[in-house]
């Protein structure tokens, strides 16, 4: 199959399709021209300056960061014990429990957003930030369950029995024996949950309000009315973040296991 030049050419074309759009964004971010153009007119960092001096983008970047970190932490506190329980041997209702914990993925994003808006913001009268945070906790729980769950499944639980038989309590065994053995899964889960919360549009769209918005939402509304490389510069900053996250995932979980 390797020798087939046409086949290789086809694969290269598809990868060009996957890579070129983001490369174009990167080049426009460093453009010295006054408007969005390609090929760029020259090199400058003006658009980065503009992005960093925009109060809206910097505030919403901060909020996105805060929401993503907090939501991921809360989801881990709830999700890791659940993932542990779901990875143990069969018991009644295990399959049902599994689908309940993964169910946030099945519901369409905008529907989630709308339902959260009506329940959290309107019915419970929660403030914007709290609603946003709760919405994000729900959407990242499945990532925690799946990634931590899959590293727990590869774990030999007899080490836990050994710890218990040597006098450790169940709780102690969990924190001193189980958790250290799945650290890489926990780190990878954190990273994936973080990036998915950070990038979320459909849920945040309904849960942002006066003064409280996330970066993707403020970028979305900016793009709808403006067309200049400020967004490219912000995109480059986000891409650098993505690369760092991918690097951590590669070092912990291994990028190849991402597929599972």
């Amino acid at each position, binding site marked *: *199959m390797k020798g087939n030049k046409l*086949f*290789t050419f086809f*694969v290269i074309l*598809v*990868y060009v*399709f*996957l*890579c070129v*759009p*983001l490369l*174009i*964004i990167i080049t426009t971010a460093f453009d010295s021209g006054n408007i*969005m153009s*390609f090929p760029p007119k020259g090199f400058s960092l003006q658009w980065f300056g503009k992005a960093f001096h925009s109060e809206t983008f910097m505030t919403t970047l901060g909020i996105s960061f805060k929401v993503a970190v907090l939501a991921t932490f809360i989801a881990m506190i*709830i999700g890791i*014990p*659940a993932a*542990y*329980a779901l990875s143990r041997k069969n*018991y*009644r209702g295990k399959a049902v*429990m599994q689908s309940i*914990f993964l169910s*946030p993925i*099945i*519901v*369409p*994003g*905008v*529907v989630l957003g*709308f*339902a*959260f808006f*009506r*329940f*959290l913001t309107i019915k419970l009268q929660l403030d914007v930030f709290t609603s946003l945070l709760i919405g994000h*906790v*729900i959407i990242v*729980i499945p990532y925690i369950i799946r990634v931590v769950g899959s590293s727990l499944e590869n774990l030999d639980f007899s080490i836990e029995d050994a710890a218990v038989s040597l006098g450790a309590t*169940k709780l102690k065994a969990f924190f001193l024996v189980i958790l250290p053995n799945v650290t890489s899964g926990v780190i990878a889960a954190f990273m994936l949950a973080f*990036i998915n919360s950070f*990038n979320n*549009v*459909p849920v945040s769209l309904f849960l942002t309000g006066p003064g409280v918005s996330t970066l*993707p939402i403020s*970028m*979305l509304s900016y*793009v*709808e009315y403006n*067309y200049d490389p400020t967004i*490219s510069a912000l*995109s480059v900053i986000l*891409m650098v973040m*993505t*690369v760092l996250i991918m690097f951590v995932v590669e070092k912990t979980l291994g*990028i*190849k296991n991402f*597929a*599972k």
Partner: protein
Amino acid sequence: MKNKSIYLLLIPGLIVIIFFLFAPILMTTLPTFMGENGITVSRYMDFFKDDYFMSILTRTLRIGLITTIICVLLGVPVSFYVAKSNPKIKGLLLAAAIFPLLTDSVVRSFAWMTILGKNGIINTLLVSAHILQEPQKFLYTESAIIVGSVYLFLPLMIISMVGVMDSIDDDLIEAAESLGANKFIAFIKIIFPLSVPGMIVGSVLVFTGTFTAYTTPQLLGGNKNTVLATLLYQKAMTLSDWTQASVLSTVMILITLAVMFGINKFASKLYERGV
């Protein structure tokens, strides 16, 4: 570990999910079936009779279907190539597929705005090469949404199929070739059928993803190419018509579930027949 304590570990998560996910969803969907005289489906009858809604529903389904087909056609050969590459190249190709997947959808749609726009790259290139007299409208069309969606979801298709392709034994292909099949025939007759499970998982992800996507149709489709997700947002937040937004929510949930169960049923039928 005793069962009791296992359930204890699940309880905090269960409470959170039931209270903050199931309750809001049921509060949104159930009232749409309530009329003055008990249960009614009249709101849905109205919905399916309305030409405007139907045109948006069929557009959304059409975009989802075309995107899924393109992703299968591009994704099957590419993921086979990725799976059979040597480890170094394989890692690189997987990373190149995962990177856009972890990049914000606003960024990815914005990239296509700069490519397809009136003063975008394609128009600039074609006009300066004298292929076009004047810039054409590529952006704000249904095709733009499809291109953007393929770009958005092809990585998902590739990633869900590489694992399946990995498990296909190289000897099978060699055997077919030594028995006289050429590479193309070997691919169609052996690789393709064996990769059906991955294709099904990938197709469900791509279809439901495209079907429910908001950002891409909003940025690349413009006002004229409304899809269910953008319509839902308009109804709920711009027009404050919560009843219709709830009807739309229910329709979207039901279609998503129907597609997931439908395709999986179809898949298990295929296995029974031993394909």
